């Protein structure tokens, strides 16, 4: 037998990819297993997929090393930050799947649905560990393609297909912009690696200035699309409204986490020499994002659309962490995303439960008088809304506190004042929901679906928000330690 000579050395630290490898294999296996599961027992597929994402979260923690390690010649980076992000992403996926069980039970081809969610998760996990524009783009596209399909999953619902198409066209455009920007940065620095770009840009001469600026602007614009910063937010309300509600919940957390992780890595590793420039651009975007998100949310009558604009508003606050550009700021982003995941998942769980006799209760009016009929759901929704508004003893307050603190530390006092103004504006539309729930009379008879996974979700998220609101210390500690190695 001839000696087989492997052309390249076997990649080192392959074990650090264990979670990703596991998700990829499990997703493909699930696709096959699903063929043997009867249509009326599809919840088994769902539970299997949930198990996969939870195991992936555990594996992510398990492969964590005390020092950052790279694999595949520096393409793949595993540090504490990536681990934290992956745990959040996997939890977000698990929540999204739990929400799907009831909502999607009458749809066809459910096997693919959960498998697509798993592949999207895989893409996000790759983004979290990307140390290189190529792998980042691979992860981004894997995630995006899966989510385009998931948004349009209810093929017979017109607005679902419409949302999917809009999202796809704008998403493809933004991917193009991102790639276009990357080519400029590559042209100047000769590297795709974040750190390599960083050194390349720092060493570049004055004649490269225009190319660098173009690269910077296009990269930021492309990423801004993905995390829905204004004025690149146009797809968000339509996609949120049209998508099946569990997918709306899913895409409001995981992809945002992955997007912000990539954003942080690119700003901190690849573009540190352009801090003045990107701070200026991001400040402009943040000012616009906070205003658009919080003002437009006031005018919404559909609660999914309202939460879409509310997401944009929250992205505006989270951007303060990016602008602060210090460890506290980046840690604050992770604190914010963790708390935001619980708040949003809880709120969407209640919205899904409002589904009455096949007609989704998506109008804000539908919540009128909820407290008289379902006091427990009403209290949960009330607490979640106060939390989203950022009122203390609830988690949302600490999320805002963390980003504002970091921004003040970095000297952006005026921006914080502006943000606080809009957080007071934002409080209006959240407490208006509380008004419908508690102050108004019942208008339509409520017909809540009974679903124990959903009830569990509501319970878990609400308790998490209260506990995080009273004892935020450990979470802030974890996030700060995870980010300590980055700068």
């Amino acid at each position: 037998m001839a000696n087989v000579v492997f052309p390249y050395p076997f990649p080192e630290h392959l074990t650090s990819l264990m979670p990703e490898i596991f998700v990829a294999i499990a997703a493909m296996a699930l696709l096959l297993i699903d063929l043997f599961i009867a249509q009326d027992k599809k919840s088994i597929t769902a539970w299997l997929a949930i198990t996969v994402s939870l195991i992936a979260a555990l594996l992510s923690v398990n492969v964590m090393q005390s020092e950052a390690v790279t694999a595949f010649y520096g393409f793949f980076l595993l540090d504490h930050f990536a681990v934290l992000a992956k745990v959040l992403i996997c939890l977000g996926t698990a929540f999204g799947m739990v929400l799907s069980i009831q909502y999607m039970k009458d749809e066809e081809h459910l096997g693919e649905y959960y498998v697509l969610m798993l592949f999207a998760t895989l893409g996000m996990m790759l983004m979290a560990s990307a140390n290189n524009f190529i792998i980042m783009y691979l992860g981004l596209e894997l995630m995006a393609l899966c989510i385009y399909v998931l948004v349009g999953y209810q093929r017979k619902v017109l607005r679902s297909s419409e949302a999917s198409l809009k999202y796809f066209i704008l998403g493809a455009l933004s991917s193009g912009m991102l790639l276009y920007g990357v080519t400029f940065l590559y042209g100047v620095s000769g590297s795709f690696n974040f750190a390599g770009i960083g050194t390349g840009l720092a060493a570049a001469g004055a004649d490269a200035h225009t190319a660098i600026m173009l690269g910077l602007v296009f990269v930021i614009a492309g990423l801004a699309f993905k995390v829905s910063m204004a004025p690149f937010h146009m797809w968000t309300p339509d996609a949120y409204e049209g998508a099946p509600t569990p997918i709306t919940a899913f895409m409001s957390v995981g992809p945002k986490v992955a997007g912000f992780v990539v954003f942080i890595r690119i700003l901190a590793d690849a573009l540190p020499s352009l801090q003045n420039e990107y701070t200026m651009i991001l400040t402009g975007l943040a000012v616009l994002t906070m205003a658009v998100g919080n003002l437009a949310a006031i005018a919404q009558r559909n609660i999914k659309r309202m939460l879409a604009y509310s997401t944009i508003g929250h992205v505006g606050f989270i951007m303060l962490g990016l602008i602060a550009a210090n460890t506290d700021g980046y840690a604050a982003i992770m604190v914010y995303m963790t708390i935001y995941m619980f708040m949003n998942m809880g709120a969407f769980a209640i919205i899904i439960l409002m589904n009455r006799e096949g007609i989704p209760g998506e109008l804000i009016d539908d919540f009128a008088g909820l407290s008289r009929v379902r006091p427990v759901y009403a209290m949960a929704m009330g607490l979640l809304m106060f939390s989203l508004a950022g009122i203390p003893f609830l988690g949302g307050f600490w999320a805002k506190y963390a980003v504002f603190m970091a921004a003040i530390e970095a000297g952006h006092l005026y921006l914080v004042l502006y943000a606080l103004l809009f957080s007071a504006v934002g409080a209006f539309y959240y407490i208006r929901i509380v008004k419908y729930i508690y102050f108004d009379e019942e208008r339509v008879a409520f017909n809540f679906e009974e679903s124990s996974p959903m009830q569990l979700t509501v319970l878990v998220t609400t308790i998490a928000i209260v506990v995080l609101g009273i004892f935020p210390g450990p979470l802030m500690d974890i996030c700060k330690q995870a980010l300590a190695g980055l700068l």
Partner: protein
Amino acid sequence: MELNNIMNFPILSLSIFLPTLGALVIWLFVRGDRAVRWASLAVSIATFLVTLPLALSFDTSTAHMQFEEFAPWIPTFNVNYQLGVDGISMPFVLLTSLLTIICIVSAWECIQSRVKEYMIAFLVLETTLIGVFCALDAILFYFFWEAMLIPMYLIIGVWGGKNRVYATLKFFLYTLAGSVLMLVAVLVMYFKAGHTFSVLAFMDYPFDFTWQFWLWIAFFVAFAVKVPMWPVHTWLPDAHTEAPTAGSVILAGILLKMGAYGFLRFSLPILPDASQYFVPFMVALSMIAIIYISLVAMMQRDMKRLIAYSSIAHMGFVTLGTFMFSTLALEGAVFGMISHGFVAGALFLCVGVMYDRLHTREIGDYGGVANVMPIFAAVMMLFCMANVALPGASAFVAEALVLLGTFNAHPAAQAAMSVSTKWVAIGAATSVILSACYTLWMYKRVILGDLVKDSVKSMQDMTVREISYFVPLILLVLWLGFYPVPVLNVIHESVTHLVAQATTTKLVAAHALAQAAPILDAVRP
């Protein structure tokens, strides 16, 4: 030894969290409106008993914080669970726990829908209010300060009058918009004063004048909305009018004091130079509150609105006394807040008693009530006289002290003013006449006169339960009016200390620090 034991027992934590624990137990285990009422009453009385040792074993000879507690809360940001009371805050803890009992008793019959939620909201509210007065960590203070909005929003919105949604949204957004600036100020102070949120550390840190100026404004907005001071007072009449009776009592009795307490705890000791700089501004706003708002009160047709405006005017007295920096005026201000808590609370309860019978608050719908409700008429007479600050009532002591203190203002306050504070005192004294006008005129139109309206003829006099919650208020108002010394003793040392803090400039130290900064930076590794 025994005293030591009491001092080491976490009384403050217990009094803060007992109401919420009680609310939790009631929510989970108590069924039936009747049982809920009794259970809440038991919880509120237990809380009052827990707070009682604060007064009984209070050391009146020191301005130091007492009953202190300390535990790390968020170590990452050096946020600590730091509690303590001094002579300024201790009375408010007792005031809160006492008024909560009265609120719960007063709601016994008039709240019939969602009794359980109502009682839970009040008990949670009590937690946040006591927390505000005990917190010595600025973030903890803000935590309780803002958390208070949630139960209050629900109390006005669920159990309020016709226009309740408008009133409660206005209340919520006004106070929220005001207090977010305070959060910025606190965060800025954290970085200025060396990564700490301790209020006591802030008091020691020399801020330079520019920072004092802007921080003072940020705090001012938060506190002025809460007091409320003209021109950000407009939420109060709406909130008072629409709130259920007990909500008005707690609003007038405690919530308004939080703003004035903020001035005493933050603005004066932490930002003394800015406070002196803003004396004319505060005096002007206080005088507008005293004179203009009194005139507005006179023209009200709704009794609750009238008392609400009267509260704003009386709080004008408090802010005036606060910014005179004299021991007398400050004692008067603190005493005035305590006294006003009882008097305004009692007046709202009086309106509540009438409202429960006729379901109207319009002055014009009454007349000759004394003929059918003689006991009630006597009680209301007493509190109206107290509101006018007649000698013998607690309000008289407060107003006399403030006027005396204003007449002999501290040189620091006098120096900031272009006119003599004696003129300010004379101007403020007109309030005695104005408050007599609006209070007694209302009393005349509602209680006195001939009995002509059929609806009024059907009114029954007060029940034993109703009398029961007026009795402690009557006793307290008279006791504080005739013998205010015990309370003044409690306040005295802390106020003297506060005067010293407010009149000692921090600019010298700030200047020295700025000079030393380059040297310190060079020495630092």
